[in-house]
């Protein structure tokens, strides 16, 4: 215990010589904020990119794994006959284990859809409304449409089944284009980030060229001089990345929540994807290292110019 106090006293003793000088040199604030801003912009484009990607994937999935069955009314047959057909179809669906979910559009719903054309309460009570059933399967590839179509035709020749993806076929190209645009924006901001980091590291060194020259003249070796800047660069790279990513995340959540429902949950769901998570987690490691690398190369280059 006494030893500990003694050590503490020594630490505050007048004339302390720091062990590592690079802690003492603060990077200029404008470089710090410049890099933070760029990481912020990059993270905003990244987060919005993965959100859009996530949402579009869900949309595609929705259409890709869903089917529609149509049971039209048959001329001259009673409503009872139609209901009977419907029951048979539902039984068939229930027997198929690959169908995850199904949803029968009720008569009421169908009538309410017709109202704008035919007016309220103008339909006769016993009119037969065609029935629509939405199916959701686990994986469309494992699902045999032809087989179920055959079975449906046995119930009635008029029953139709089709794949919903045909509805969005023309939009698939648009979705792909949006995805490519988003990816391009993310890549452009990433490239600008790389450029900004290179410029900042170089500016930082040229602001300290006097220090480098003095150290060189006193007889410091290349690695000693580089060490003077390494820790500073690690701290700068790490803190700018963390701050940029967090501010970016908060901003995107704030803006997103104004326009979209459950944005917060969706964004987190989207981020918890191995690819993206790795990217986000590796940034605070890669960026400081990149900073150091550029700084080291710049110092070596500067020293080459000195005699």
């Amino acid at each position, binding site marked *: 215990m006494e030893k500990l106090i003694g050590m503490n006293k020594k630490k505050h003793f007048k004339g302390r*010589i720091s062990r590592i000088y690079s802690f003492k*040199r603060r990077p200029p604030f404008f470089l710090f904020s410049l890099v933070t801003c760029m990481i912020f912009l990059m993270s905003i484009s990244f987060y919005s990119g993965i959100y859009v990607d996530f949402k579009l994937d869900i949309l595609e999935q929705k259409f890709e794994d869903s089917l529609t069955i149509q049971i039209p009314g048959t001329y001259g047959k009673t409503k009872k006959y139609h209901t009977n057909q419907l029951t048979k179809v539902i039984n068939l669906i229930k027997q198929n284990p690959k169908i995850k979910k199904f949803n029968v559009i009720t008569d009421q719903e169908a009538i309410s859809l017709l109202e704008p054309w035919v007016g309220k309460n103008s339909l006769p009570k016993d009119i037969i409304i065609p029935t629509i059933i939405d199916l959701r399967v686990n994986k469309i590839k494992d699902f045999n449409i032809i087989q179920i179509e055959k079975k449906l035709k046995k119930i009635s020749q008029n029953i139709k089944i089709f794949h919903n993806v045909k509805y969005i076929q023309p939009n698939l190209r648009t979705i792909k284009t949006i995805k490519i645009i988003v990816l391009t924006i993310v890549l452009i901001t990433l490239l600008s980030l790389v450029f900004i980091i290179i410029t900042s590291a170089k500016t930082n060194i040229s602001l300290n060229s006097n220090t480098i020259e003095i*150290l060189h003249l*006193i*007889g410091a070796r290349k690695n000693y001089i580089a060490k003077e800047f390494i820790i500073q660069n690690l701290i700068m790279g790490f803190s700018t990345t963390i701050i940029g990513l967090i501010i970016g995340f908060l901003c995107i959540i704030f803006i997103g929540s104004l326009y979209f429902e459950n944005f917060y949950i969706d964004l987190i769901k989207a981020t918890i994807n191995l690819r993206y998570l790795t990217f986000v987690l590796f940034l605070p490691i890669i960026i400081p290292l990149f900073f150091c690398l550029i700084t080291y190369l710049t110092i070596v280059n500067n020293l080459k110019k000195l005699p």
Partner: protein
Amino acid sequence: MIKLSKIYLNYGNNADILKNLDLKLTSGSFHFLTGPSGSGKSSLLKLLFLGHVPTSGKLSIFGKDISEISKPDLPILRRKIGVVFQDFRLLDHLTVIENVALPLQIAGARNRDIKDHVNELITWVGLNDKIDAFPNTLSDGEKQRIAIARAVIGRPSLLLADEPTGSIDSNQGDKIMHLFEELNKIGTTVIIATHDNSLVSQFDYPKLNLVNGKINRNE
């Protein structure tokens, strides 16, 4: 010890600062380097502390031709040369004690081994109450004394001082000159560039007069 032959120095497209300069100094000598302002005193010292390469000519220090020394060996050579720069060149982010300790740290000494040594020297130049101050809070005279302390802390074999008494009073100046003489006694070769004639006349050391890019010796 130091040998310059047919040295030319030109900073670019203007006239030669040093012209066909020959100079030979023996180990352990003490010289004043005089000459009018702009005659090239600082430039000559710059060549000697390897801060610039001569445009042409041969320069050897410690008996070695510097053009033949490999780059990795140069730092070792530089550590044997103490320099008091005319513009001090202290590191602004380091305290007084850290600036003075720097040459020893660079040479690989450990903090606890150098601390007493550094403290003693700082006390000697009269700055022990400013030990934790940063250079930009100091007066020019104080900065100059720090620069001198940094130059001599490593007991260099060659000490090059450019106007070392330019910013300090004569009392302090005498003390500094005494420090240089003590160093010279233990074998350091000393060259002091100055245009302070009263300082030069005070001592009986040989003078190197730099005029028109050449050295006139008047022993």
